[in-house]
């Protein structure tokens, strides 16, 4: 499956965080790479939505939505926002 990028989850991120997030800064908790959320690698058809670091491929964020409830895992990030 080919990755898209953080632009593709602008709507999901807005829903979760209540604000526009594609232009927000992110820092990978594994390798320290910094880039706007829009530039992160996004897999839309994983079980849930998986966001990975474009430098080291570590998982940064995972979103799973079931029955209008979205579970959010941000453990791979050192910085967001």
């Amino acid at each position, binding site marked *: 499956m*080919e*990755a*898209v*990028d*953080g*632009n*593709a989850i*602008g*709507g999901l991120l*807005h*829903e979760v965080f*209540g*604000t*526009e997030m*594609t*232009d927000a800064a992110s820092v990978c908790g594994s390798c320290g790479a910094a880039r*706007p*959320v*829009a*530039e992160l690698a996004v897999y*839309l058809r994983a079980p849930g939505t998986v966001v990975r670091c474009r430098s080291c491929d570590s998982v940064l964020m995972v979103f799973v939505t079931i029955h209008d409830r979205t579970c959010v895992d941000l453990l791979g990030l050192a910085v967001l926002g």
Partner: protein
Amino acid sequence: MAGTALRRRLTWQVAKVSAVIVETSSVRTLTLDVPDWPGHQAGQHLDIRLTDEDGYVAERSYSIASAPGEPLAITVERLDDGEVSPYLTDELRTGDDLELRGPIGGYFVWEPENGGPLLLLAGGSGIVPLRSILRHRERTGSTVPVRLLYSSRTLNDVIYRAEFDQPASGVEVIYTLTRSQPPDWSGYARRADAALLAEVAWPATAMPLAYVCGPTSFVEAVSQALVQSGYPPERVKTERFGATGGT
């Protein structure tokens, strides 16, 4: 401006299709009436949600094709194995309702004060948000010089061709046709790579601002080539559509 937009709640709304324009054999532009549309920026997108009789929901993002201030429009390419696009291009009619939310995105956007010179690089339907940027430039009276490199499979796959054949002052449109070319074709006929960009891109010393949109492989190849040629990564804005669409 951003402050109020940022705090806005993003809610699903029902739009009414007010016009359907045939762009190519597989591409349609849908003009949409949205009662509470808050306005958008050039380069933003919106999400479309389709719900079938069983309650199955499919959501997809589509770039906004119109400039801020124009009637809201999206341009959709039909993907034969798609869940959403065949409905939008083949089934939807003027007067039909469509559920959407937007506008979305604050990264892949351009305002006249962002300046240029602008380098716009489109693969296939990646042209859509760049068309919004071009129309916004023209409507705001910006004189920022623009080069657009637009990669399509064939001339018949070029979207907005009538518009691009008569570009605004200061806009240069360069096509490359990667699959087949008309007999008298004098334009480029190869993939957008470092060698092609060396011929058509502004030199890095001009401090250009680049927007790259299209299938992931196109965006990766083009953005890496630009950075290797000296463009600072933060001056190369990218938006990837995945494996869809033709270049």
